[in-house]
C-alpha cells in the first residue's frame, strides 16, 4: 500500500514556515513540501498537528523541551483542558519555577498523530470522501508519531532539542526520538516506560480493543457516519486500563472494600463498592474526551513498539552512534509499584546504554501509587527531573531564567 493521503488545510490555522508560535492549542499543517512516509507504507501529506508551547525560545534556539504525552493524553500539558476543564495533565511538573521550568525552557507538546484532540486521526475528515477516516486511517507507530513531532520541531526552526521527556507511551516516544534523531536531541528523560511493549501489556490492550469492537454502536468503526458512538465499549476499555495504572496498595488505600452510599451489600449488580463506582466514573468521563477509533490506533502503536527489533534484536545496538555511544544524555525513572512498566523494563534500557558506555542516570522512585505515579505529586520524582535538567542545562551552557532569551 502506498497511497497518499491529502489533507485540505482548514481555514485560519496555517502558519508561515519558520515562525515560532507561542501559546496553547495551535495547529500546523505539516508534510506540505513532501509527504511523510509512515511505517505501514502510506504517505501522509498536508496533515494537521495540534500543539501547545509554553515559555520563550532563546536566541540560539537551544532551550526547547519536547514533552511527549501518554496514551490518552494530549497537548494540554499544563493549561486547562478545554473539555474536562481540569488543569493540564502535567501542571505539577511544567510551568514557571516548576521542574520543567517554563521561565527557562521553551516547552513544546503536540497531540500525537492518530489522536483526537486536533491532530490528524481516524475521527478527522478524509478530504477524498468528505467523511471521517474511521478504519480507513492508516495504522501508525510510535516512530510515526515521532516523525510528525520532528516535522513540527523543524517547522518551529529548532535544530536540536534540549530535552525530550515523557512517561509511559510518552517515554516510548522519548526513546524513539533518541534513537531516530540522536544528533537532534541533547538529553532524554524516559519515565515509567519500556523499549518494547510486553506480551502482558499487549494482552491488556487487546481486552480494551475487543470491548470497543463488541459495542454494537461501534458499527465496524463507522459510528461517526451512523450518528452514534460506542460509549459503553470505550468506557469498559478505559476501566480495564485504569486498573493497570494503579497498584493494589493504591486501590486499597483509596477504597478498600468500602461500600458506596449504603450500609450493606444489595445482593445485586449495582455499584455496591466504592471502587466500582470510581471505575464507572473513570469510564464515563473518558468517553467525553476521547474517540474510540483513536483508542484502537494508539494502543496498536504501543503494541508494535520494539526498539530492539530493527537493530537485530539487540537493544544496545539502537544506542550506538558512529562506532561509539549515543551522544544523548539519558535519565531513566521507574516507580517501584508500577506493574505495567516495572523497573526491570527501565533497567533493561539502562543495561543496553551501559553496554555502549552511554551517559545514563537511573532512579527507581519508591512509591505505592503504581504506574500513574508519574502524573501525581511525587516530590522525589520531581527532584530528579529538576536535578537532571539543571545538570544538563549546565553542560549545554543554558543560562538560568529569562535574562538571555530573545
Amino acid at each position, binding site marked *: 500500500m502506498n497511497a497518499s493521503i491529502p489533507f485540505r488545510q482548514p481555514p485560519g490555522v496555517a502558519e508561515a514556515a519558520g515562525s515560532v508560535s507561542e501559546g496553547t492549542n495551535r495547529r500546523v499543517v505539516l508534510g506540505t513540501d513532501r509527504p511523510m512516509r509512515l511505517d505501514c507504507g502510506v504517505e501522509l501529506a498536508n496533515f494537521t498537528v495540534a500543539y501547545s508551547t509554553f515559555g520563550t525560545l532563546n536566541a540560539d534556539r537551544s532551550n526547547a523541551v519536547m514533552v511527549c504525552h501518554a496514551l490518552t493524553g494530549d497537548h494540554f500539558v499544563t493549561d486547562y483542558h478545554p473539555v474536562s476543564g481540569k488543569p493540564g495533565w502535567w501542571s505539577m511538573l511544567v510551568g514557571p519555577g516548576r521542574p520543567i521550568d517554563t521561565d527557562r525552557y521553551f516547552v513544546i507538546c503536540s497531540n500525537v498523530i492518530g489522536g483526537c484532540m486536533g491532530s490528524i486521526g481516524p475521527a478527522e475528515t478524509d478530504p477524498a470522501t468528505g467523511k471521517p477516516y474511521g478504519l480507513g486511517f492508516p495504522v501508525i507507530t510510535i516512530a510515526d508519531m515521532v516523525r510528525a513531532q520532528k516535522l513540527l520541531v523543524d517547522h518551529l526552526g529548532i535544530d536540536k532539542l534540549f530535552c525530550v521527556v515523557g512517561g509511559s507511551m510518552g517515554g516510548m516516544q522519548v526513546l524513539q526520538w533518541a534513537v531516530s534523531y540522536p544528533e537532534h536531541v541533547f538529553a532524554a528523560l524516559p519515565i515509567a516506560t519500556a523499549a518494547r511493549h510486553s506480551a502482558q501489556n499487549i494482552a491488556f490492550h487487546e481486552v480494551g480493543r475487543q470491548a470497543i469492537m463488541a459495542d454494537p454502536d461501534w458499527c465496524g468503526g463507522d459510528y461517526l457516519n451512523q450518528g452514534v458512538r460506542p460509549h459503553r465499549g470505550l468506557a469498559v476499555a478505559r476501566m480495564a486500563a485504569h486498573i493497570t495504572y494503579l497498584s493494589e496498595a493504591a486501590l486499597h488505600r483509596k477504597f478498600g472494600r468500602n461500600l458506596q452510599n449504603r450500609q450493606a451489600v444489595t445482593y445485586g449488580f449495582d455499584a455496591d463498592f466504592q471502587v466500582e463506582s470510581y471505575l464507572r466514573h473513570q469510564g464515563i468521563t473518558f468517553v467525553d474526551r476521547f474517540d474510540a477509533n483513536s483508542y484502537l490506533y494508539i494502543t496498536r502503536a504501543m503494541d508494535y513498539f520494539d526498539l530492539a527489533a530493527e537493530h537485530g534484536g539487540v537493544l544496545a545496538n539502537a544506542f550506538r552512534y558512529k562506532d561509539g555511544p549515543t551522544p544523548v544524555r539519558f*535519565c531513566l525513572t521507574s516507580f517501584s509499584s508500577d506493574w505495567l512498566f516495572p523497573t526491570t523494563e527501565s533497567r533493561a534500557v539502562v543495561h543496553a546504554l551501559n553496554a555502549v558506555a552511554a551517559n*545514563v542516570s*537511573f532512579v527507581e522512585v519508591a512509591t505505592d501509587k503504581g504506574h500513574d505515579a508519574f502524573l501525581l505529586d511525587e516530590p522525589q520524582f520531581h*527532584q*530528579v527531573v529538576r536535578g537532571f535538567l539543571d*545538570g*544538563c542545562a*549546565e553542560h549545554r551552557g543554558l543560562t538560568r531564567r529569562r535574562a538571555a532569551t530573545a
Partner: protein
Amino acid sequence: MSPLDDTSSRNRRSGTIRLDLKLIADMVEPGSRVLDIGCGDGALLDFLVHEKGVDGRGIELSMDGVHTCVSHGLSVIQGDAETDLKDYPSGAFDYVILSQTLQAMRAPRTVLEELVRIGDRAIVSFPNFGYWRIRMALLWLGRMPVTERLGYEWYETPNIHFCTIKDFTSLCDRLDIKIDRSVILGRDNRPTRLASADRTANFFGEQGVFMLRRNGTHG
C-alpha cells in the same frame, strides 16, 4: 550510603572533600572518563566533574544516594556493581574508582577483575584490617573493632569481606593485576611515607589507596 559510617565526606559549597577522596581525585587526569562505583552521595564524583572536568558516571546501590546524586545533576545509576559491571564494554573508562566499597562486595575478586577490564586504570581504596589498632582491639578486648571509620557492630555491618593490605596485594599478584601506585594512610586519613611493599605498611596503615591496571597494558 558508603559502607563506612561517615556522612561528612563532602562540602559542596566550599568545593572541598575528605582527604582520602582528594588523594583519589589527585590520581585522576583532568578531562578523563571516570566511573565511580558505590559513589554514595556523589562527593567524589561531584568534585571530579566540577573541579577536574571529567566525564563522570556513578553506580550506587542506595536509593537515597542516587536521588541525591541525580538531583544534583550527576550521571548516576541505581544498581549493584556486582551485577551491572559485566554490561560495560572493555576499556569503557579511563578510570574506574572503587572507594571504600571492596569490603562490602560479595565477590571482591570478580569485581577487581571487572575493574581492570572496563577501566584502563582502577583506583581502589579500602580499610586495612591489619592496622595495629584493629589488631590490638582484637588482641586485648577480644571483640570485633568498632572505630570511627568502621562504625558498625559485627551483626549489622555491610562490610563482609575485610582484608589487610598484604591480603590485597597478594590477590592482585594472583590475578596478574599490576599496582602502579599506592598510598598508605595513617590516622586521620594522613598519607604516610610507606609503600604497600613495605613490611610495616600492613601494620601502620589505616587504609590504602591503590592504582591498578591489568598486567600487559601500559600507558
